[in-house]
């Protein structure tokens, strides 16, 4: 087992990793930027090294500075957390070439799964359903029409070089296909200098269901069941829960097995999450495999009782997974609310600043993961998430009741936070009965009838 680990991250995930290290008797070395100097969680690490100025490029993305810090503190492994360098295979390679273990998957698995085309190939080989679509780039309007007719409307025309939600056009019927194709091509040329397009089936009102995976270096892979993350705003998750209220036990088993098959086919070890879109008929389609620990991992920790962070560290140190698939429970329902320093009333603009009051909820089944506290200043330089509020109760309705209570208890003043929007969501009948999709939040709170607010 490692005696000392460096944490190449900040905030609540750095604190989470420090806690796992302390639980295991491992010395934790934290790194921080000038903007994070003085943060209380740094005092819980065995040592803390300043690595650069506030901008992420100077600090948390500064691989050279992080490697230097690892060198002078003589660590045996680096945990990258999520975001920043967590899925940077060059960084993973740098670590391993310096004889420092990177707590995550192999560089090969990371490269394989990080490439959308290759990931789809692995999924296909593992007989994991993919979103039906064209085999590759669609050259002409005629080909587009043929592909669309084959997979069935509605379809999405997507720019190969696109990203960030741009270069995507829905087409609902064949009457509009040709003109949409022409326009999409022109748009892609203009925006990305590359007019290549491909076509995928448009999954209407999809649910986002993902499976937590854990693998060891001996090839064993288990799943820790699924999480439903359909409550999103602009592709940012707000609320996650386990189990998913949208799928039957049968679909659950099929989904989780598919995820394990894919991970094994990719030679995946460490923690990872396999994301799927699920349609109204419970058909599921592989989206991508995130080769890292995720923000919402505590949801799974609460229903399974498995400490995912500790297992990540053990696996990295070469230990075998001692978890039997048939012995991993899914007890009750756990729900997580991501609390961000943002103003819901002002288009969720960030609301950094000093926190004077910070009253954290408690009671049975409540878990709060946060690096913030009274006196802490939320800086504008990084992600606006300041806390994760989780509740686990024996039934979903009880979890909802307790979460409403906990949201009421949670006081963060004077900065604005997203607590009010969570309170509104928990009062929506569709959410309470477990019937939402990824467009729900936009439709319910931000539809055009509310424009001009």
């Amino acid at each position, binding site marked *: 087992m490692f005696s*000392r680990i460096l944490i190449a991250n900040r905030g609540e995930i750095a604190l989470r990793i420090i806690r796992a290290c302390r639980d295991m008797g491992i010395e934790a070395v934290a790194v921080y930027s*000038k903007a994070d100097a003085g943060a209380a969680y740094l005092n819980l690490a065995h*040592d803390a*090294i*300043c*690595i*650069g*100025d506030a901008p992420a490029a100077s*600090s948390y993305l500064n691989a*050279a*500075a992080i*490697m*230097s*810090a690892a*060198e*002078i*503190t*003589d660590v045996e492994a680096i945990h990258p957390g999520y975001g920043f360098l967590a899925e940077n295979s060059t960084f993973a390679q740098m670590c391993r070439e*310096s004889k420092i273990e990177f707590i995550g998957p192999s560089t090969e698995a990371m490269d394989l799964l990080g490439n959308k085309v290759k990931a789809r190939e692995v999924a296909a080989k593992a007989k994991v359903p993919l979103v039906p679509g064209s085999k590759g780039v669609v050259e002409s309007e005629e080909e587009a029409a043929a592909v669309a007719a084959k997979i069935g409307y509605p379809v999405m025309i997507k720019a190969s070089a696109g990203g960030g939600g741009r270069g995507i056009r829905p087409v609902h019927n064949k009457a509009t296909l040709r003109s949409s194709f022409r326009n999409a091509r022109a748009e892609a040329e203009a925006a990305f200098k590359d007019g290549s397009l491909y076509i995928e089936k448009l999954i209407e009102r999809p649910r986002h269901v993902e499976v937590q995976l854990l693998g060891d270096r001996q090839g064993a892979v288990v799943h820790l069941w699924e999480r439903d993350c359909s409550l999103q705003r602009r592709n940012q998750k707000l609320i996650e829960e386990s189990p998913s209220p949208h799928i039957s036990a049968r679909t659950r088993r099929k989904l989780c097995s598919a995820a394990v098959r894919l991970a094994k086919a990719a030679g995946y070890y460490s923690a990872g999450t396999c994301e799927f879109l699920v349609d109204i008929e419970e058909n599921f389609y592989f989206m991508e495999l995130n080769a890292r620990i995720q923000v919402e991992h505590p949801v799974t920790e609460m229903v399974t009782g498995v400490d995912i962070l500790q297992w990540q560290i053990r696996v990295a140190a070469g230990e075998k997974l001692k978890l039997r698939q048939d012995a991993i429970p899914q007890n009750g329902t756990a729900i997580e609310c991501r609390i961000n320093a943002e103003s819901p009333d002002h288009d969720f603009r960030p609301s950094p600043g000093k926190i004077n009051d910070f009253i954290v909820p408690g009671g049975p089944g409540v878990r709060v993961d946060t690096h913030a506290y009274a006196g802490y200043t939320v800086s504008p330089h990084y992600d606006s998430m300041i806390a994760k509020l989780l509740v686990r109760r024996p039934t979903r309705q009880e979890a909802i009741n307790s979460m409403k209570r906990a949201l009421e208890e949670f006081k963060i003043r004077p900065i604005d936070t997203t607590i009010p929007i969570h309170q509104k969501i928990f009062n929506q009948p569709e959410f309470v009965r477990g019937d939402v999709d990824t467009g729900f939040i936009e439709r319910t709170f931000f539809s055009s009838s509310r424009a001009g607010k």
Partner: protein
Amino acid sequence: MARVLGENHMDIKHLKNLVALMVENDLTRLELEEGETHILLKRGQAPVVNDMPLPAPVQAAPAPGPAPEAAVTPPQDKPDLRDLTIRSPMVGTFYESSDPDTPAFIKIGDIVEPDTVVCLVEAMKVFNEIKAEVSGRLTRVLVNNADAVEYDQPLFAVEPV
């Protein structure tokens, strides 16, 4: 702690922790023996117990220009407020000279210019020359040879001339 200290040298970080401990507990004197090392830290003057709440400062105006002449002479081990600091621009290991047999790049009393190489900081086997970036006379060296240093860590105090 894995950082190389060298013999008979204080670990600056260790001393900082002791000072923080003193401040936290409002101690004025801390004496410590660790093996062959004897540390004695003294701080300020004996605290005055004051039961009355201090009046809120009215119109707290910042002191203009350079630091005001202190009414109380600061203890000798406090940095002169007029000093400039040369700080490390990177994480690594500090070396005072280009090799063990060569004298240090600079010594106390030397004049430095912005382009004067004041030390090396080594990271991942690459030795980086660190320039002063300021002008003045070197008054203090704040780290020891082969110490681990972090970003922005003070290395030298320079008195403007």
